[in-house]
């Protein structure tokens, strides 16, 4: 399996929301629905507070519980990668994947089928970065193949402190945050 990963530098992210707008534009996500979002996390006690901005989306887990839970095989991985996609022609909207996703990263389209971030695989197959990464004005987002030790994402993870969200789920999420 080729593991694609996204790495986001929380030291550089200013929470502008351009990634969200880029995603909606690129993927024609209907009004009122979002495939990605930005979280402002504040920790500490006043006046010693720390804030980080996180651009979040589907984590394209290498052990995706949503895929395991889907009863119709509508959820599948793109070619031999960890990019998790949904086939609208097979999705019944039963909600099993929504209940199985620990990141609440799925959404129900107006037509009734379930959708989610695709890591813009239609751009990736052309050698382009996902729209959110390409549009980031602070260049805090990186995308690449994790199994290639020379890729930017691999080098960043090798040299910087990082975390992934709720790794205790065992899903092996592939969106990393540099801290």
């Amino acid at each position, binding site marked *: 399996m080729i593991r694609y990963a996204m790495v986001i530098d929380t030291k550089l992210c200013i929470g502008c929301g351009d990634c*969200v707008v880029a995603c909606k534009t690129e993927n024609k996500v209907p009004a*009122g629905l979002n495939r990605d979002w930005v979280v402002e996390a*504040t920790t500490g006690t006043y006046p010693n507070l720390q804030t980080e901005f996180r651009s979040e989306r589907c984590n394209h887990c290498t052990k995706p519980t949503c895929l395991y839970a889907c*009863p119709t095989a509508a959820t599948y991985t793109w070619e031999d990668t960890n990019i998790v996609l949904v086939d609208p022609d097979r999705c019944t909207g039963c909600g099993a994947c929504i209940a199985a996703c620990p990141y609440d990263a799925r959404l129900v389209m107006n037509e009734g089928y379930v959708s989610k971030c695709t890591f813009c695989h239609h751009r990736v197959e052309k050698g382009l970065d996902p729209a959110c990464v390409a549009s980031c004005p602070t260049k805090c987002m990186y995308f690449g193949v994790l199994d290639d030790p020379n890729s930017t994402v691999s080098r960043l993870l090798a040299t910087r402190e990082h975390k992934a969200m709720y790794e205790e789920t065992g899903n092996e999420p592939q969106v990393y945050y540099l801290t």
Partner: protein
Amino acid sequence: MREEILITVRDNYKIDPTVSAWGWQVIADLFLVGLTAGALIFTALVILSRKEETFAFTAKRLPLIGLISIGMAMSFLFLKLTHKQVFYSFFLAFVPTSVMSWGAWLLQVVILSILLLALQGLRQGFPMLSGPVDKFGIGKWVLDLAEKIKRPVAWLSVVMGVIIAFYTGTLMTSLDARPFANSGLMAPLFLTSGLATAAAVVLLGSKGEIERRVYTYTLFGLLAFKIVLLALVLVNLASGSKVQIEAVQMVFGGEYTQLFWVIFFIPGLLLPLLIEAFGLRGKRSAWMAISPVLVLYGAYMLRQLFVDLGQISGYINYVNTYNPALIDLLRMH
């Protein structure tokens, strides 16, 4: 303190502010499938023990109630689907890792089993229905066949009843992302609840004295066991992972404490158990009919709570509305 605020809009349908992908349709489905499972098991046991005369309601009438229940359950499940036009996709694949996929296929066998049990009891249980069926050659042949093969069908029904009741609990257990429902004891709890539901229906419908007495004992035992299992589920969650402990706190001092104990546990479990205890001493008084009604209510509420609180609990806890308590939280030492 730790405060996580969504600073870009996220108001995804059925996801925000808390996951609500499964609504009343799934809850009703789980309840009705539980009832069907109980009907399968009780009817089959009566047939296998050759006690059909003594337990006439269980042998002849209960399976039709089970058949109607499973029909309603399937209808509710269909109503729940948000992309109905491809509902047939359930039967284009079998996904071994998906509990729901197992359920889709197992339910076909369950429907066949309960249909055959209902048909074997139709002539004696519902003569007004069997009369018109018997007038047609094929109808008579089907009823004859169902009566002829009722014992092998009963063996199949016992197995399928246990499996399908376990399925409803396992469906909840399988969702690791929903900590409140993520206990390995959900399967036996839902099996016990399904049996109690069917026993309650028998007590509401049966006029046989022996049948009613036996089911009084049965229901009492099932309710007592259900309370023990429920307690073990809560202990299991309270001694589980961080998210499970946080989830169970919702009913121990948290926002859903009153709902769980006052609205569900006392009227849906404890009260019918006490009423059934009166029945153990002998005759069932007319006022005791309230007990099976409360059992049905409790069985529905059990599923409602585990589906709803299961969805509310989780790993993500973002605030996506203005929180006036934020300033206090920031100052908290």
